[in-house]
């Protein structure tokens, strides 16, 4: 409470300062605009630096995984490497292919960045510390992230290069497909929290949050919805096109996919947006399932008057960024048909099953008077249901692996004339 008052007071103090500078009343529209501008600049700055060091972290971490040292020449531990990289990238020649559709080609590279920045508007790092607490925060995140598809199409089409187009189409097919399990897996969490606001979702995982009000204890949602969490993590990895779901830019097949033709600064913009999205997705995973800026234990939430929300949020985000990097370092890339099959035949049914389970338990516990106020019993329900779901998962993955070979067999049979033509056509 004290920390909250401290923060609110400080926000008020900043408002007053700005108002004083501009010579306006503290609640004037311009002050609002100035506050928005400041938060935008803060987000941009933090994310920018975060992105630069994410590249460093990635190279260092991958190096360790692969028993190497990673960058260690520029600065201590190679800490200045990102800046060297940046200078290199900015000074490279900017090439636009002669056949490219100039406008679409350039616009594609420019438009790829804004969605990746805008999503940070709904990432909270503490009470009151959020750019805008939208009532539809999570949906906002998803919908803005989904607009990133359009510049990918523009890049692929504008390049007039078949690898770029194939890469773009693969990327879009993948992103669109994985969006479905990504959203469906979270619906269970949304049901439990009863809100779409990211701030509300965070608070629902704390003591005294909305979770308590409807009979769920102040627990991180990962404990109640573990399978949903795994689905979300995998789908998100595919959404941001990282290994093992990085088919769109599989170097060995289609060079660098939709950004094959880009160089210098424009290539840098693609890199930038990808790291932005990685950080944003890591942040969203921690908000949805790991309590966001809430500390793991209540007494760790603040030191004296200082709220540590930003610290916990940052720590969790970095943890998930590392998880994505760990995926990249250790998993092989999936085949294209496996990739789509995995989304539609495994993740979508599972997330639907998870939603059904959550809805059923939620309905039972809310309609039964015996159960309200018995959080442990409810948790037990969820544990049993999740165990059942886990078994279903394993069975489903086994089935999928058995069946995912089938297209090849059918194709070979067809080639050998073993299947009737009608069936081949079908």
């Amino acid at each position, binding site marked *: 409470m004290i920390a909250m008052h401290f923060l609110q007071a400080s926000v008020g103090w900043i408002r007053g300062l700005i108002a004083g500078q501009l010579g306006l009343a503290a609640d004037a529209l311009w002050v609002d605009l100035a506050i928005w501008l400041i938060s935008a600049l803060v987000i941009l700055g933090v994310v920018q630096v975060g992105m630069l060091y994410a590249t460093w972290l990635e190279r260092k971490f991958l190096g360790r995984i692969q028993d190497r040292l990673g960058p260690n020449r520029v600065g201590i531990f190679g800490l200045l490497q990102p800046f060297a990289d940046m200078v290199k990238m900015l000074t490279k020649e900017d090439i636009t292919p002669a056949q490219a559709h100039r406008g679409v080609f350039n616009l594609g590279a420019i438009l790829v960045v804004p969605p990746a920045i805008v999503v940070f508007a709904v990432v909270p790092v503490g009470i009151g510390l959020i750019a805008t607490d939208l009532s539809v925060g999570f949906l906002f995140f998803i919908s803005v992230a989904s607009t990133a598809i359009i510049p990918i199409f523009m890049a692929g089409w504008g390049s007039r290069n078949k690898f770029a187009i194939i890469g773009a189409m693969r990327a879009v097919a993948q992103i669109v497909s994985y969006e479905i399990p990504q959203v469906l897996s979270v619906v269970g969490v949304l049901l439990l929290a009863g809100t779409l606001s990211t701030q509300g979702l965070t608070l629902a995982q704390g003591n005294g949050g909305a979770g308590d009000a409807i009979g769920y204890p102040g627990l991180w949602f990962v404990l109640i919805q573990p399978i949903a969490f795994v689905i979300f993590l995998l789908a998100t990895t595919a959404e941001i096109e990282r290994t093992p779901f990085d088919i769109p830019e599989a170097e060995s097949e289609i060079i660098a996919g939709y950004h094959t033709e880009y160089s210098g600064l424009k290539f840098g913009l693609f890199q930038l947006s990808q790291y932005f999205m990685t950080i944003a997705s890591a942040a969203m995973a921690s908000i949805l399932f790991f309590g966001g800026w809430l500390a793991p234990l209540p007494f760790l939430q603040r030191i004296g008057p200082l709220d540590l929300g930003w610290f916990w949020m940052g720590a969790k985000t970095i943890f998930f960024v590392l998880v994505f990097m760990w995926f990249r370092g250790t998993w092989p890339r999936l085949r294209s048909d496996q990739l789509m099959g995995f989304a539609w035949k495994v993740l979508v049914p599972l997330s639907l099953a998870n939603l059904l389970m959550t809805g059923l338990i939620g309905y039972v516990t809310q309609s039964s008077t015996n159960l309200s106020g018995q959080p442990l019993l409810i948790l037990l329900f969820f544990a049993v249901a999740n165990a059942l779901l886990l078994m279903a998962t394993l069975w489903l993955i086994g089935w999928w692996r058995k069946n995912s070979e089938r297209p090849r067999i059918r194709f070979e049979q067809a080639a050998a004339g073993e299947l009737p033509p009608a*069936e081949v*056509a079908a």
Partner: protein
Amino acid sequence: MPNLDSILIHFSPELVLALGALVVLLYDIAIRGRDGRQAQLTLVALVLALGATFWLWGQPPLAIFEARGAAGGAVVRPGAFISDGYTHFFRLIGLLTTLLVVLSGMVYLRGRTPFKGEFYALLLCAVMAMNLMAGANDLIVVALAIEFLSITSYVLTAFLRSDPASIEAGLKYFLYGSVTSAAMLFGISLIYGVAGTTSLTPAYAPEAMRTVAGVLAEHDTIAVAGLESVLLPAIMLVLAGVGFKIALVPFHQWSPDAYEGAPTPVTAFLSVGPKAAGFAVLLRLMTRVFGDSGLMSGWMGMIGLIAILTMVLGNIAALTQSNVKRLMAYSSIAQAGYMLVGLAAYGQGQLAGLDPLGSTLLFLLAYIFTNLGAFAIIIAIDHAAGSSELEAFSGLMKRSPFLAIALAVFLFSLIGIPPLSGFVGKFAVFGSAVAAGQIPLAVIGVLTGVISVVYYFRILREAFFGQPVEGAGRLTVAPSLTFVVAVALVMTFAIGLAPGAFVDMANQAAALIAPAGEMLAGH
């Protein structure tokens, strides 16, 4: 919260259909593409839904999917779906149509498509959409149901995807349809704006509630607020959407192409199902919602004009067609024009004992059996010859006398020769027009009817006096198809010879959508 029990009871035909569609799809997956009994399952679902409809006929009318207040459970918003005699009438028409279409198309489809399960599931969904159109009491449900039927129709039209004509027909149907439905939705959004609610009528609800019909009835207020200039264009836009489903001129351009390219059983379905459902929506909207006297004078002229255009253009364009499916497309456009005459005669006096709207319903009832019977024969010939050109009908008399004579009966009925059902229908609508003082409509109807003799006789001449093409032997017809022809024959004669019971049926259904007595008396 809506009342679940009443939904389960009064929505049972649609629930059965939805469940049936699901079962057919799952069955199709379970048998893994082998030849199965999807058609039989579909028939079971249709018969069950028919049974439910007959059973509901004895139940008191009710509007379901109502919203109730949290506290006392009082209805705060009238039901979104009306389950009364009018709805049952169209449920019956929709279910019977589909039953006959499935029976006559079973053999035709075998071997023509690998997606039998999907075909029948879509057909069941189409019936469900038609039923929804008949009972819809909410602008949103009206829009959804029309669009639902449209989407299923597009897919069914393009169902034979190895046949370029089928796909092309589907695309043309789709493009026309999506434009007109967007126009209709625009009109609906304007009507919503005028009324402030999407709920259409206070059907069977005890309390007075805000509805579109209620707001529009306050005609003076609307005129003062200048909203009349919004409503008439809006009604016109809605007419475009519904007119597209019925294939009224000038929203008919899709229909010859779609009819010709679609698989013949689908053509049979399109020529009857969406038309009937379109009329269901049209009549209910025009009378119960826009039936206020001030508005009516605005749209009555439009309806009369459309009826004339439809009758004239349909009959004249049919004269030059060489493909029978295409010819039947224009023929069915013309028939829809005749049906519309009943609506154009509405509210201005009536033929002894027959409501003008009842005459439309009676015509519809007569039309579905006659037209489906004719189409059953076209399906049989198309199945055997692989073509629906006029030449394929040559020498039908020698190849199958039963079909040839049945065809003659159906076409005579479409012309309107007594004592067949078509005559009763035409007599009813044109009689209503005369009684309502709409003499020009009746005269044009009769004259265009005379024109229609020419093109119907072209088919009959081929069938009776033409020579069978080389190698075409006796036409063997599946028993299910013979059954359809027989049923259609029986009904054609029954409605023609003993119209009494059917007139009662149509009248009772029409009475439910006629506005209350005082509104008529106000004229």
